[in-house]
């Protein structure tokens, strides 16, 4: 004798395997709906990280200064171990006497004090460069566009700073104070200004979320320094990221709602198709409970298959979109897998139960006659 449970399983298996077309359609629609929801949610979760990375180019959001100068090694140790600090760079400011040490024709007739900035000159973004960036320790200088215009300098020429000759390899226009200054690599500037191991400022880039804690931490670690947040960058960034996150979140909700409604109508349509089957089951003695359990199990099976496939497809879609937009893939959190499966199961079960309940109330003969 075959037990009741075995009958049930055989019935379910048959239903799933023998009408492949119908099951395929249902599973496919669950897959599509879950995929689009997972990719939209995944993207909205990862967007802060990706955009934050782009916004880094707006520059430092904390600036640490000290009138007397900071000890470079001490500051470096404090900042590199500070949690929440993404990156930092040091600058040294000073003023030097300059003259153009060019050919005999443009012999130095004027000498003037010029602002000098010692910095890490490895940034390729954020300014318009003519020529190239200077190499470290090679006696090369980068000149701001205002200085270039004022001294009528040319690429390949030389500039005399405090009597020392520097060759001009590049001119930059930045739209900021650098335009009126000469820039050297930090070690070169420290030598020229006779301030070895000293920096005037540390430009710190911290994660926008925990700015206040980082500021507090730096204040404790470097007691002589004045620590300021560059509010322009910090606040605009926080507001901007919040808005974009909200946009993505709302888009995800719209997608979620539309996908759920659309999916439940597909599932209902496939159940409508089987009303006659329900009539037949009732006619040969199926209880309402038995038929209900049968349909719920079937819906669950379809929901799980579609949910898993949809999650995988959604992860791939989110990766592709992120690759296209940001040039790097996004990691979709794994918590969306149970979420996607749950979405698939709940919708397919609910959507098949609604028409089913109606059908179960009818007399088998009515359904079988097709009225």
């Amino acid at each position, binding site marked *: 004798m075959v037990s009741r449970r075995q009958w049930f399983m055989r019935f379910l298996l048959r239903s799933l395997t023998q009408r492949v077309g119908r099951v395929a359609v*249902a599973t496919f629609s669950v897959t599509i709906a879950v995929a689009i929801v997972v990719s939209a949610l995944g993207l909205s979760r990862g967007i802060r990280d990706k955009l934050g990375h782009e916004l880094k180019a707006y520059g430092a959001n904390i600036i640490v200064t000290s009138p007397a100068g900071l000890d470079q090694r001490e500051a470096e140790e404090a900042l590199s171990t500070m949690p929440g600090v993404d990156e930092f760079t040091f600058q040294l400011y000073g003023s030097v006497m300059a003259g153009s040490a060019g050919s005999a024709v443009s012999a130095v007739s004027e000498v003037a004090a010029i602002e000098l900035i010692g910095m890490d000159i490895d940034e390729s973004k954020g300014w318009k460069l003519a020529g190239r960036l200077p190499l470290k320790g090679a006696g090369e200088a980068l000149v701001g566009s205002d200085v270039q215009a004022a001294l009528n300098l040319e690429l390949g020429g030389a500039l005399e700073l405090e009597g020392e000759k520097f060759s001009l390899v590049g001119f930059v226009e930045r*739209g900021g104070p650098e335009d009126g200054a000469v820039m050297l690599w930090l070690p070169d500037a420290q030598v020229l200004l006779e301030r070895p191991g000293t920096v005037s400022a540390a430009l710190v880039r911290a994660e926008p979320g925990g700015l206040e804690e980082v500021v507090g931490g730096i204040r404790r670690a470097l007691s002589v320094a004045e620590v300021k947040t560059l509010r322009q960058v910090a606040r605009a960034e926080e507001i901007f990221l919040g808005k*974009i996150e909200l946009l993505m979140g709302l888009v995800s909700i719209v997608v979620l709602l539309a996908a759920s409604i659309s999916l439940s109508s597909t599932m209902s349509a496939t159940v409508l198709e089987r009303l006659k089957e329900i009539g037949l089951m009732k006619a040969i003695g199926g209880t309402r409970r038995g038929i209900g359990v049968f349909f719920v199990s079937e819906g669950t099976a379809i929901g799980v298959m579609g949910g898993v496939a949809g999650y995988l497809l959604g992860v791939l879609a989110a990766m592709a979109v992120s690759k296209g937009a940001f040039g790097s893939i996004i990691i979709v959190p794994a918590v969306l897998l149970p979420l996607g499966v749950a979405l698939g199961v709940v919708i397919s079960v609910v959507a098949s139960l609604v028409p089913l309940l109606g059908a179960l109330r009818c007399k088998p003969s009515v359904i079988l006659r097709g009225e």
Partner: protein
Amino acid sequence: MLFILLRQSFTNQMKAMFLMFLSVAMGTAVSASLVAISLDVQGKVSRELRSFGANITIEPKVEGLAGLAGQRRFLSEEDIPKAKTIFWRHNIIGLTPFLELEALLEVAHSGATSKRKVMGAWFDHSIMLPGESEPFDAGVSSVMPWWEVSGSAPGEGEALVGVSLAQELGIKSGDTVRLMGRDLRVSGTLSTGGAEDGLLVLNLNELQSLSGNEGALTRVMVSALTTPMDEFAYKDPDTMSKVEYEKWYCTGYVTSIAKQLEEVFGGSRVKPIWRVAETEGRVLERLTVLVYLLTLAALVAAALGMSTTLAASVLRRLDEIALMKAVGADRMGISIIFLAETFIIGLAGGLVGYLISLAAAHYIGVEVFGSALDQKGILLPASILSALGISSLAAWLPIRRALMVKPAVVLKEVH
């Protein structure tokens, strides 16, 4: 005859038809709202990005070492309204002038004197533009919304003290400072997180008359909506052909807007603030691509979702088709009935979906950007046509298959 068949089909199968309609409407709604967002996202986001501050500075031209050595040259206040007469005037959404000087500052209660930087700025200042009825806000807050004044903005005979300066000299609100022979009451403190924290700030026009520099400015900060820089934009305008130059000049690049501003401000040198301009361009481009790709994914998903529902509904009526054939209907007649059915569903679903998308996109625009999205009218015909196209196609394929089978086979299989 066709009409009767259609009416019966809709009344007999209310539920099935409603489900098809629902699926089409939802598919259209999500696609149309995402398309609406992607069409306007660039404009909205570029406006948001302006909160990162000015992207163009106007300064006096420096000539010779004298300029660097601090022998000031000035811009003229009279030139400010001209900024709103250039080709890209509507893209200039904020501008504000400054005058920076060094002067001897004396604190009344302590008697301390020191040479300090003093700045004149406009607070809550509007200017009238030629040919415009609305005044244009040229105050500091239009370009630098992060300036925080505690107390009140400096009026006649008043000054604002930057927080670092206030701390250093021990000045607080209500104290008196002496500048260029005039007593000024401290109306509050200014906190910006930038260099302004160390300055004394006066109303621009007061500083001009105090220092005898009537109508003079040392800097104008401009906030302009720009087109992201592309490869063409980085070409040197001096080496462009006439056609290229015209194209460059009439595109809203930050460089071409700067060039146009330089033309109207006498004796000026106008520079993009490259850090801001470049980052802005890149963020804008990436976000736009992101929204486009997401929209594309949603369109594909919606089309697939709609077609599966419709295909499922047609498949389930195979026996009906067989029966029609058996009683003598020709293939043409059957196709017309089914296509007319899906046509009505596509039309209704497309229209309702469009209406839902209007509401959804409007809500998102207001909620996120504080202003409704610019909805393009083209979306109405576009959504209805694509809903019609997809549903017809989705119905047509199974119908064609159904028409090919023999009625006897189908009818035997189903029953």
